[in-house]
């Protein structure tokens, strides 16, 4: 396959296949050397990776739905907030953290399928992309509003699954919180990959996303695969929300995921919007970038992180709209 991509300069073309691995390898070398040189750098990189894990799982959720329907689900963050509050409620009722975690994922899965069935399918039947995007914004308002209505707008305290201690590796202090967040996020994405790669349902879902008409011909219920996709996306979103709520820098409140959704957008766009692996790499890169920038660049205040993510997104869309891992698409007219 000749994956050629046009850059900003007309006529100047770069081959996709080697430049992306080179870029990623370069970034990894930079991070490793920096971490060896300075313990602050190492610490910031690891907590950046932890944040990145949160962005990555939400970004993969976005990618799942985008691949199936070519629509960005603006409600992904709102739904994640809703499920996180369910987990808070279960813990408040006396469940242990991991029991509540598992129950929440199950509820999120069912809830995601239900949402697709009730809110998205009737709209999709009519519609163009604009209608579905607006419906998903309606869903975002609905989900965040429901959180505020049921649980109130005050900040809640979410216990963490991981001990609030640190451990030392070579003079660098790492928190269990950060390492645990990275572990859970990456593990959940990995499980999802196993599901898509090695199960029959996973194969059917991939077929339904790539060639709906052909999939229908071989007997796949494409509409059910869509619901299933929404269920899985909501589950991943729930993982992201739970990890975010446990992080010390995020407060459990109705608008908790608004900012994180933008970081996940940036991550998904950086990865190419169609590639789950790209979303993971994008999420981790955005997480590390947004953690290292304020540490080392004076004028980047914490309030400017959202604008920075926005600029990254805009830059990728303008220079290489297919992202790091995406394929260049020819648009039909």
């Amino acid at each position: 396959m000749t994956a050629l991509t046009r850059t900003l300069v007309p006529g100047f073309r770069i081959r996709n296949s080697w430049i992306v691995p080179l870029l990623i390898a370069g970034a990894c070398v930079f991070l490793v050397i920096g971490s060896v040189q300075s313990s602050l750098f190492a610490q910031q990189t690891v907590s950046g990776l932890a944040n990145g894990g949160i962005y990555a799982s939400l970004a993969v959720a976005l990618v799942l739905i985008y691949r199936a329907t070519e629509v960005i689900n603006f409600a992904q963050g709102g739904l994640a907030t809703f499920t996180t509050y369910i987990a808070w409620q279960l813990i408040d009722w006396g469940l242990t953290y991991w029991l509540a975690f598992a129950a929440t994922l199950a509820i999120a899965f069912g809830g995601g399928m239900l949402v697709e069935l009730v809110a998205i399918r009737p709209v999709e039947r009519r519609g163009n992309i604009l209608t579905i995007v607006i419906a998903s914004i309606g869903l975002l308002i609905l989900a965040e509003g429901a959180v505020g209505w049921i649980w109130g707008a005050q900040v809640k305290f979410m216990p963490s699954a991981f001990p609030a201690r640190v451990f030392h590796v070579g003079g660098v202090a790492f928190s269990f919180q950060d390492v645990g967040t990275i572990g859970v996020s990456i593990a959940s994405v990995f499980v999802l990959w196993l599901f898509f790669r090695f199960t029959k349902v996973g194969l059917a879902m991939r077929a339904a996303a790539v060639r709906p008409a052909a999939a229908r011909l071989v007997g796949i219920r494409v509409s059910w695969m869509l619901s299933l996709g929404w269920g899985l996306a909501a589950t991943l979103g729930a993982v992201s929300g739970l990890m975010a709520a446990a992080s010390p820098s995020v407060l459990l409140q109705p608008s908790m995921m608004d900012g994180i959704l933008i970081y996940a957008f940036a991550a998904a766009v950086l990865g190419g919007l169609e590639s789950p692996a790209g979303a993971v790499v994008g999420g981790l890169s955005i997480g590390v970038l947004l953690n290292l920038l304020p540490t080392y660049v004076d004028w980047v205040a914490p309030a400017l992180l959202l604008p920075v993510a926005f600029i990254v997104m805009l830059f990728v869309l303008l220079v290489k709209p297919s992202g790091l891992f995406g394929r260049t698409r020819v648009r039909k007219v």
Partner: protein
Amino acid sequence: MRSSLVARSAVIGAAALAIALAPFILSDYNRSQGADVAVFFIAILGLNIVTGYTGQISIGHGAFMAIGGYTTAILTHDHGWSELSTIPLAALVGFAAGVIVGVPALRFHGTYLALVTFAVALAVPQVAKNYSHFTGGTEGLVLPAHSGLWLYGASWTAAAILFVLAWLILRARTGRAFRAVRDSEVAAASSGVSLAVYKTVAFGVSAAFAGVAGSMYVLVNNFVNPDLFGLTLSLYILIGAVVGGLGSLWGVLVGAAFIQLLPIGLTSSHVLSSQSVPVIFGAIVILVMALVPRGAADLLRAIVSFHVRRSSNAPSP
């Protein structure tokens, strides 16, 4: 066809009369709420130009309102301008901001454009928070207060002028070009409509309207801070445009009244708490998209044409 035109003129006339007479029976507090309706009216009018008529989705109109609002606030607070004289400048700054967003937007379609404008809506208040030297940061700036009557008069005058302006733009060559771009970019381009020019102009004009809305919004609230222009504002403007009807000028009034008056109605009638408002808004947006994607305008059009058909089908005595 003719009867629907008459009906439409009658509706617009009645609405204009009601708006003009309303301040004489309202309390001063209600008048400032009425001024808020005008603010949303202007903002939705602007959004409708770019999303309803040109087909370019924008979820970031709160950001353009913020830019207009801060223009007015900074000029009156720090530089001693009179409030009303800042409004044309707010429109100009809004126009410039719209063009700046509109130029990269030329390369984006549908979902991507939604994504970028959504990020603009979240990013701009953060920028205002950060450069507190100019904007007063999180606390913001306080402006002199005005009576409800003054606010009502000023904001509805601005709304009326902009409504006529929008009508003039949309009925002429530019408006036809906008609609051509919306309906089919390929067809528009092959009939000689420059996509780049008209999309950018649509964004600019639309953002100029939003700038004026933002500047009136700041005057009505008599203060400005980043939270005033949060994501909720952008989303509510979009709800208003959707409920009123994308691509319908007089649906704008329905949309503006809907987002401003429904929360007040719900809260004051004690049917539901104010907390439930977003839930109801969200549900209504999904319902509208599923049932009548062109909003209230479409619904009314369907009813009117149904009646017209019925009366013309009725046997004459």
